[in-house]
Every structure is written in structure tokens, then in C-alpha cells.
């Protein structure tokens, strides 16, 4: 039988810069097909071309035996291609039912039949073992449920092909398992799935074949079980793995003996999500904050930085207690904060690398309110060189940079202030493997020079490798402090997973 989907020789340019160069993608019927590559390899572009969000410049697409060129996601959906995007793309104010059923409503006498639609939404969610009030607005439910709603919507369309772009990024382990069961159900029903993910374990757990992309080209297609992890990563990065893994372990424990904390947080409580969190960071030390989604990690560090107001507890920084009520206080006191969402809270897309890099430093660069451009240029040049930021020059717009390089600019934004403490919330999210290693080794180097680092990461191995101490948060409380030999994945996981009350709560919203 002919493959369900054949994309051949696809070209796409944005403003003259090629994003896809003769890329190929073939998906068989009833298979789960992994699509992987570094950021900027062209995965998203090829998916958006398939779903009609972008128009291709060249190449051909055969779907279900017929040549197609969709001009909108709507057309693609009608032809049997459903997509679940990385960021949840639903309408928060509207009810769960509407989010699932919009686009294929049930009607009676030409008007909407609400009761039938509610029933269908409930039935679809039941496949995921989720039982919620479908009339309530979507925003009433936690992210994981919203993700499931997005998947239920896609499946409800009786699709022949379901595309999942990093669907697991906001799910916990149990939810991932539920999702995998659904994917297997789909496969049995002869529905094909394109699965995009950065997490190797997941790929090996659920995928049949893999297409690897690099620099807009398809570089390898292989059955999953015939491809070792090393080969997969090598092929994805296009260089020897040894280079990637060239990182020393020697920095651990160098500074843990230094007395006195730069930051000390005691019994912090914020809103409903954080009830009792305590941790501390010493100079020259990397401290990890671990925990499942919703454990209160991000909320805690935001309060430390003065973004949100805590209800109770003490935050002492540099010896002063609760002196920080706004980010500007935190910055003045010597803190830096790279937020979780780079696009939403980090970069100023239309500004140049230089302007982004000096954003926080600006008041110090100015004399009587006038920016000293010469000094600003000197500083920017120094950091571009030192962090190896790849850009055409300091005046390039930051939006044109890759994720990894944007993140380096944001790191530099704080480093040029000579901070005493740097808070990093998911510093490597959405960044390719190569840049990840660079950023992590940079953080280590900085800690070696006496900087205190507080790091949140959802990738356990990353925290375990980088941090010399780890505080584990669960349901808004600090449940463990691990140091020395305890800093390993097993102990972190067992601390995170002590009891399962949290899971039930998520399921019931």
C-alpha cells in the first residue's frame, strides 16, 4: 500500500533565507513517526506547510494518494490532518465543549445542539480517563488538562493523521503514559501519528520510525529500533557526540564549603500555589529547584525577584530582609532573573542584540539620562565574544537569532551587571543540544567565579549534573534538601514522587 503521506523536495524561504531545502517526509499508514531535529532544523516549518499554515515554494505533497496543497489549517483538517501544537492553542474564555467541538458542531434545526455537544466532549475526554465539567471555561483547568483537551479535539476530528508537536512538555509522567496509550489506540485504529519531541525516552517508547532533519534538510530516515541513541544524536547534530559531551564534572562541590548565604528564603507562601517553601543559595554555588509542574518553583523565584508579592515568609538577600518589592529593587541589589518564557518575558523582539543585552544595565550606562553609546558598544562586543553569541553583529534584531543565541543574550543581560545571584528558570528549554551544553558549561564557569546560581529545570539529568545542592518542592512545599552524594536522579525522583495525592488533584482540576 502507498504511504499515507509523502512530502518530497519541499523548499521554503523566509525573506530570502532558506528554512527548508528539498526536505522529505514519508509517513506510512498506522505508524507513529518521530520527527526530530535541533531548533531551526525545519520541523515546525515542514509541519506548518503540511497543515496549510505556510505555503511551500517548491516540492510536492501526496496525502492519501492524491496531490494536495492546503491553503488553510481548516482545509487540512477537513482532509483528515489534525494538529496539536506545542503551545496550547485553545480559547481560554470558552467552555471545554466549545474548545473540543468548534469547527464540527452538532446542529438541530440549524441551531447548535448544546446537549449533544457536551455529551460528545465528555465521551472524548473519557478516553483519557478524564471526567470534568465540560461547560466550564477552559481556563478553569490546569495546563495538563488543557493539553488533553487539545488532544481530544484533534482526535475528535476522525483524523487519518494526527500531528503532535511536543505534546508532552506540560504533562507529568502519568499523563504521558495515558497519552501514549491513546497513541497506541490510534495506531491500532490505523491512524498515523507524527510525533515531535526532544525527549529521547519518549521517542523510543512510542515511535516506529524516525525522520531526522538538520538545516532544513532530511538527513536520515530509519526504523526506531534500528537506530541507537548515539547515532540518532550524532545524526541530528551533524557532529561527533564526543564533542557534545565534552564537559567536565570537576566543578561540583568546589564551593559548597563557603560560609554565608547570598540568598535565604524561609517559609515563603504565595497565593494558593506556594504554602511553605524554604531554600538558600551560597556564593559560587549552583542550587537546583526540582519538582513537578505546579510544585511552585516558578512562583517562588518570581516572588524572590519581586515580581509577585508573597503572603508570608522571609526573603533575605545580601543580608537584608524582605527589602525587595519590585524587580528593580532586586536588580539594584544584585540579582538577575532569566524567566521561563523567553519569547513572552525575555526578549524584546524588535530591538537589536545590543539593546536587548544592555536593557537592565542602561541606567548605569547613562549620564544624566543620556546613553553612553561607546561604552555600551564596548560591553556588548565583549559579551558577544565571551559567550560566543552567533549573530551578524550587535545591531541584528534579536528575533532573527536562534533560541540558544537569544538565551545567551539574555544571560549576558544579567552578567554585564555583575550580579551576586542569577536565577535561571528553565534556561535550556527549547534550545538544541549543542547550545544546551554550551549554556550549562557557561553557568558552571560563572559559579566557579563566585556567582550564586539558582536553577529550575524540568530535565532531571540537567539539574543533577549542574547543581551541587537540590531543593525538592512538592505541592508548594519544600520536601527535601539533597546534597553531596544524594544529588542523583533516583533520590530527586523519590522526593518528588512521595505519595500520589498530587496526581489525583491534577486529574480533577
Amino acid at each position, binding site marked *: 500500500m502507498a504511504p499515507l503521506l509523502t512530502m518530497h523536495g519541499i523548499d521554503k524561504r523566509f525573506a530570502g533565507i532558506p528554512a527548508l531545502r528539498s526536505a522529505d517526509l514519508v509517513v506510512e499508514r498506522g505508524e507513529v513517526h518521530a520527527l526530530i531535529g535541533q531548533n531551526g532544523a525545519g520541523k515546525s516549518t515542514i509541519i506548518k506547510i503540511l497543515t496549510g*499554515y505556510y505555503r511551500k515554494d517548491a516540492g510536492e505533497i501526496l496525502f492519501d494518494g492524491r496531490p494536495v496543497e492546503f491553503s*488553510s*489549517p*481548516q482545509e*487540512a*483538517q*477537513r482532509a483528515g490532518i489534525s*494538529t496539536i*501544537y506545542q503551545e*496550547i*492553542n*485553545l*480559547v*481560554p*474564555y*470558552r467552555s471545554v465543549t*466549545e*474548545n473540543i467541538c*468548534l*469547527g464540527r*458542531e452538532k*446542529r438541530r434545526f*440549524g*441551531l*447548535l445542539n448544546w446537549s449533544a455537544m457536551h455529551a460528545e466532549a465528555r465521551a472524548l475526554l473519557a478516553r483519557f480517563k478524564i471526567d470534568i465539567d465540560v461547560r*466550564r*471555561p477552559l*481556563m*478553569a*483547568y*490546569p495546563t495538563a488538562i488543557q493539553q488533553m483537551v487539545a488532544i481530544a*479535539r484533534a482526535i475528535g476530528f476522525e483524523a487519518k493523521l494526527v500531528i503532535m508537536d511536543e505534546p508532552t512538555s506540560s504533562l507529568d509522567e502519568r499523563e504521558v503514559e495515558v497519552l501514549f496509550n491513546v497513541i497506541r489506540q490510534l495506531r491500532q485504529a490505523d491512524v498515523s501519528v507524527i510525533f515531535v519531541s526532544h525527549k529521547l525516552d519518549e521517542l523510543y517508547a512510542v515511535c516506529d520510525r524516525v525522520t531526522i532533519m538538520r538545516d532544513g534538510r532530511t538527513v536520515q530516515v530509519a526504523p526506531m529500533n534500528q537506530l541507537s541513541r548515539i547515532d540518532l544524536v550524532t545524526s541530528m547534530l551533524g557532529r561527533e557526540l564526543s564533542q557534545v559531551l565534552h564537559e567536565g564534572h570537576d566543578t561540583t562541590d568546589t564551593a559548597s564549603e563557603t560560609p554565608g548565604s547570598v540568598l535565604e528564603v524561609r517559609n515563603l507562601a504565595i*497565593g*494558593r500555589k506556594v504554602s511553605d517553601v524554604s531554600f538558600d543559595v551560597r556564593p559560587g554555588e549552583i542550587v537546583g529547584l526540582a519538582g513537578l509542574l505546579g510544585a511552585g518553583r516558578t512562583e517562588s523565584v518570581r516572588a524572590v525577584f519581586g515580581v509577585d508579592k508573597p503572603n508570608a515568609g522571609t526573603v533575605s538577600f545580601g543580608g537584608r530582609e524582605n527589602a525587595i518589592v519590585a524587580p528593580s529593587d532586586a536588580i539594584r541589589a544584585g540579582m538577575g532573573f532569566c524567566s521561563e518564557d523567553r519569547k513572552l518575558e525575555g526578549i524584546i523582539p524588535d530591538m537589536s542584540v545590543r539593546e536587548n543585552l544592555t536593557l537592565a544595565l542602561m541606567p548605569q550606562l547613562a549620564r544624566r539620562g543620556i546613553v553612553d553609546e561607546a561604552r555600551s558598544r564596548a560591553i556588548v562586543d565583549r559579551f558577544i565574544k565571551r559567550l560566543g553569541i552567533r549573530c551578524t553583529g550587535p545591531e541584528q534584531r534579536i528575533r532573527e537569532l536562534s533560541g540558544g543565541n537569544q538565551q545567551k543574550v539574555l544571560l549576558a543581560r544579567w552578567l554585564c551587571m555583575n550580579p551576586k545571584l542569577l536565577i535561571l528558570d528553565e534556561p535550556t528549554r527549547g534550545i538544541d543540544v549543542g547550545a544546551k551544553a554550551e549554556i550549562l558549561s557557561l553557568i558552571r564557569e560563572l559559579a566557579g567565579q563566585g556567582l550564586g546560581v539558582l536553577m529550575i529545570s524540568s530535565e532531571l539529568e540537567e539539574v543533577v549534573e549542574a547543581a551541587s545542592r537540590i531543593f525538592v518542592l512538592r505541592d508548594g512545599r519544600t520536601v527535601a534538601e539533597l546534597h553531596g552524594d544524594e544529588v542523583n536522579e533516583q533520590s530527586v525522583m523519590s522526593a518528588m514522587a512521595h505519595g500520589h495525592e498530587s496526581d489525583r488533584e491534577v486529574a480533577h482540576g
Partner: protein
Amino acid sequence: MNTTSLKLFQGIGRYGVLLALVALILFGWLRYENFLGAFNVLTVLRYNSMFALVALGMCFVIITGGIDLSVGSTAALGSVVAALLSPYGVMPGLLGGLGAGLAIGACNAFIITRLNILPFIATLATMLAASGCALLLADNQSVSVSYETGFVELGQGDFLGFPIPAWIALIAYLLGSLILNFTSFGRTVLAIGGNEDAARLMGLPAQRVKALVYLASGGLAGLAGVILAAQFGAGQPIEGVGWELFAIAAVVVGGTLLTGGVGSVGSTLAGVLLLGLIFNILNFENGLGWISLSAYWQSVIRGAFLLLVVAIQARLSMRTEEAA
């Protein structure tokens, strides 16, 4: 999370405006002799039906997260076209005005959905264009309507003892409410306002629905123009200045979120009546002779009222944010 606060917010938006309306009516009834007399009630309804039509279109537009600044001059253009065609009968006048409104609406739809220009700026431009067209057609002066064809009945006549323009507005609101709540078109309007990208990726025909919404807004404004011409016996090329902002104010007072995604047709009507009654009560107050507030106070009071409503909304949404 904050669904209760959202409900509260919508509730205050929806019932707050009704409460205020009831309070204002009670106030007028207790204070002035003929406030609830048939004459005054019908006059208020007749006069405000034009604004009601414009505000209905605006309500849909705002729910999609857009804005339509062109409705005022579209109404002016509609009134001029209707007046020019009124000698040929009721229908030509009516359809002419409506058609002119739809034409401007189509321009808006094209500029916003095809050229991808922000609604604010697109409708700003068509506002100028419509105003220019109205002045050109009317030769810079008001155009008398023909009194022979019965066209003026559209604005001045009654049907079953109820003003015809009020009938038109009432039917439009019933249809509007039905469409918003019980058709996929209406739900798509709400979805677009909630998150346009998501609506598009969900495969909803976002562009087409948006285009239709602007088309409808133009058509309703044209219809308001027809009523304007019929009610005052003339096409008014310079009328309609500030109507768009009055309509926006009415929609906002009615609890529709200006960012889109949440809104209701019924409370928009209440918002229109509320703002209209303020003017009415001012007239009564002057009639009593106790104080002499010039008509200029009207806009000051409307502004203050708008401020009050948005301040309450803002307070409320801030509190809900904190609670979340």
C-alpha cells in the same frame, strides 16, 4: 482557578448594567411626573434605536477583539444615500442606505482580513473615506428626504403603537442574540476574540467570520443612517461624529471585554439605554427648573459614567487576578 472570578466579572458586567438601568428608571419615575409616560418612553426608544443598531454591530466587532471606528460616518453616508433615493420609494431608500453601509463594511473587511491591517487603523481610514463620500454626494449640505413616498415612516411611524425604528432595533437584537449563542458563527466570533491564533489553528474560518462581522457592522450602521434620515427628514452628511465612541462606551458599559472573547448582546442594549437615559434625565432636570445644566454637561456626565464603569471593572479584574 479563576472561573468564579470570571463568572463574577461577567455577572457584574451583565447584571450591574441592568441594576444601574433599573435604578436610573426608578429615580426618573419618582422624580419626574411624565417620565414613564408613553410619550417620553416612546421618544427615548425612537431616538436611541439608531444608537442601538450601531452598538449591536460594535458589540460583535469588539467580541472578535477588533474595533470599528467607521460606524458614525457610515451612518451619515447611509442617511445621505437613503435621502437621495427616498423619492423613489421606501424600499430604494432603505436598501440604498443599507447598501452604502454594507459597502463601507466590505471595505473594512477587505482591508482588515486581506491586507492584514489593524482594525483600529483600517476603520479610521474608512471613517474618513465614508465621511468624504457623504459630503461629496450631499454637496456639503443636508439632503431633504421626500415626504411623498412614505419613507419618513421608517423613522417617525408606529406599528402596533410602537415606533418602527424601535421594532427594527428589537428584531436586530433578537437575531443578534440568537446568532451569538446558537450558531457556529456566533461561537466562532467568541473564539476568535478569545484567541485568534488558536481559532485559526483549530481550523475555524477566522478570516471569513471576521469579514462578515465587519460587513454586518457596516450594514447596521447604514440601517441606522436610514432611520436617521427618516427621523429628521434629511440626510445628514456631518451627523454621526462621535457615534462610534458612544457605541464603544455602550458596549463596554454592558460588560463586554474590550480585549474580546467575552460579551453579550442583551447587556449592550442595556448599555445603550443607560447612556440614552442620562441625556433624557438631564432634559427633565432642566425642565424642573431647579438647576440649569447646559446640554454640555451631558458629555461630562457620560464620560464620568464610563469612567465609573471601567474603574469598577478594572478593580474587579485586578482583585480576581490577585485571588488567582
